[in-house]
């Protein structure tokens, strides 16, 4: 009886935490989609072009669209925004709520060549089955063609 009860608890807790993980993945997928679409149509600054402020604006959209799943306190929080255009790659990466770090590499290789934006969102989560648990990293990449004139 005790064994069956344990199994039951394990199952219930596992289902609940799995459902939470699915929900979190859903949210960061949606955040990546929203942010990439926003970035695709966001005009560059007329003077400075695609700059850190542009990348930060996209990052903020991703963060807001994730409804807390990409906030700075979330374990494994990860937002990468990259733009490929006339100046090559420009990137902004924020990990674990730290300061956003600019760079000149894509968020991930995609094999494309046209002007485009990449948004990659991610966070860690835990699947718990009462008597044991394991961590998984959730990642949602989105690539969209950049539609504005630089």
């Amino acid at each position, binding site marked *: 009886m005790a064994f069956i009860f344990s199994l039951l608890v394990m199952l219930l807790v596992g289902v609940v935490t*799995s459902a939470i993980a699915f929900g979190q993945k859903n949210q960061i997928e949606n955040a990546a989609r929203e942010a*990439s*679409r926003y970035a695709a149509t966001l005009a560059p600054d007329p003077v400075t072009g695609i700059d850190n402020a542009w990348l930060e604006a996209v990052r903020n959209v991703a963060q807001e669209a994730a409804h807390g799943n990409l906030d700075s306190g979330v374990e494994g929080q990860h937002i990468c925004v990259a733009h490929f255009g006339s100046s090559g790659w420009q990137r902004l990466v924020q990990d674990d709520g730290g300061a956003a770090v600019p760079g000149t590499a894509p968020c991930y290789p995609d*094999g494309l060549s046209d002007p485009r934006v990449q948004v990659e969102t991610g966070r860690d989560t835990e699947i718990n089955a009462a008597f044991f648990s394991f961590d998984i990293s959730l990642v949602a990449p*989105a690539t969209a063609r950049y*539609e504005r004139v630089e």
Partner: protein
Amino acid sequence: MRESFRSDRGASIFMLAISLFLLIGASAIAVDIAAIWLDRSTDQKVTDAAAAVGVLVAVETGGQDACESALNYVAVNTPDLNTVDTTDCVQFDKICNPDNPLETEWDFPAGRYEITVVHPVTDTHDLMTSGIVGGTAQPLVDDGKPCQRLAVKMTSTRNSLFAQVLGFSSGRTSVHTVAKRIVGDDKPPLNLIVLDRTGCNTISVNGGGQIVADPVVHPDGYLVGGLIIADSDGSECSGTNGVINVSGLGSVIRADGPAGCGGNPFTFKGFPAEEGCGTIRVLAPNDPGPCTPPACSNSGGGNAPNPTPSPLGSRYTRAPADHRYNCYSNYTTPPLDTLWAAEELTTANQQNIDECEETATRDPYIYDLIEFVGPRTDGKPDSTYEYWKAERNEKCNVDSNITINNQNLVIDCNLQITSGKSVTINNGNVVFDQDVTVQGALKVNPPADKPWTFFRGGKLTKAGTGTLEFNNAMVYMAQGSSLKLSGSGSGGALIWTAPTAGDFADLALWSDSVETHAWSGQSALTLRGIFFMPRGIAAYSGGGSQEQTDAQWLAWNLTVGGGGVLHIAPGDGALPALSDRAELIR
């Protein structure tokens, strides 16, 4: 025996087993359904990106490339999909015909997914009407036209993780996105368009001539590349001839732009620029390579166009000019019962123009003017006009200096202004009915509130040493009109500037003539504004030391030769190139 049947012993175990089975089953189904819903979310991200890029590429380079681009974006955005076989994208037409949109729908299986691409998307397609999900048909409101739409549908099949024990081996979900191409508000500048839909050599340079699309300084203080567009599909080309043709030693077609493309550097209005950093686009197909027919050809020492022409996926049309200066809700029926209008818009080789959407705020200024002036047989437009010869008794062969102020005129004879003599008309509208030959000087300064001059026919000729000035004037040339403006390195001038305000602001020339419009370099040349010759042949040759223009050219075709160097640099009020954006509508 009866005792044992009445006993409850063991019932709880039985109930627990049943409950556990149901709980495990429900949990299994819940987990698998959650996975399918996650697929929907991911797939929606994928179809949004794919449809958006597809509809933009469809406009730029046609349906086949659009399909390939859409599938490439599907592969990039789908986590468990590396590539999608794009071979069958050849099913899609290169050019979408807005008059007869042939809908192509093709399925591309890839792993556990099936991707469907549709282009063009007709109004009655399931994806437009929501019939595919059994929903209520959505009304078509501001949804564009079939050629402006592309749809991507994605169906994913997921093997069940746990629900297989209950007999559910897999689950399927399907999402779609329909994207519409809209005109963006970026308004990149446009230097030159040639509108011949089928011709060869539509932009042609020979004999050491040059066409150079200069960069443009954006009002916000940065440099934008020059842009040349040829709207011909090249169907009249044969052999080695191309739509864009450069022949002869030293001949050049080039679009310059901001530094960064590796061309020869120079400074343009204080900004670092490089040769060939602009854009040349042509509708005719161009194989990968520097310059291949039917899009492009070069021979006899002529340089290949710089940069290499890139594809144009759909007709460009004259719509930007008509929508600004001749705004009609329907261009398929001639808007006026005039010979000019009818022939202008119904000739087989003319473009179909989308309706002008600003009819509430903008009138068809050009045709209002045509209607007001009327054909030559109508005589004077109104009583404020006087005939040059019949009423004022002015000489048609001008051998003195004549200045006329504050008077509207109809020049009712062949006007010849001899060398050293001049005609100056201030603050008056002029209607020319016959040939005008300027060996001396003709200066026309129309009133600021009606800044136009009208040619109902005849040929305007300027000798090399003659001087011709249209100051702040829109010149309209009707069918049968033509012009030949020769230049010289030793005198003479051509000053032709558009109005700076009013209905015709920034429009220097609107010609409905199919005749040749010939220009030459001048020792003193000022061209400012939009020169619109959608049915006319534009020809430019050498003849002077100054070739710089501050003008935008739109013509049926353009030939430059004889050492003429035509720099085209659109001014602030020039018609913008249409920039494309995607809007997700379903």
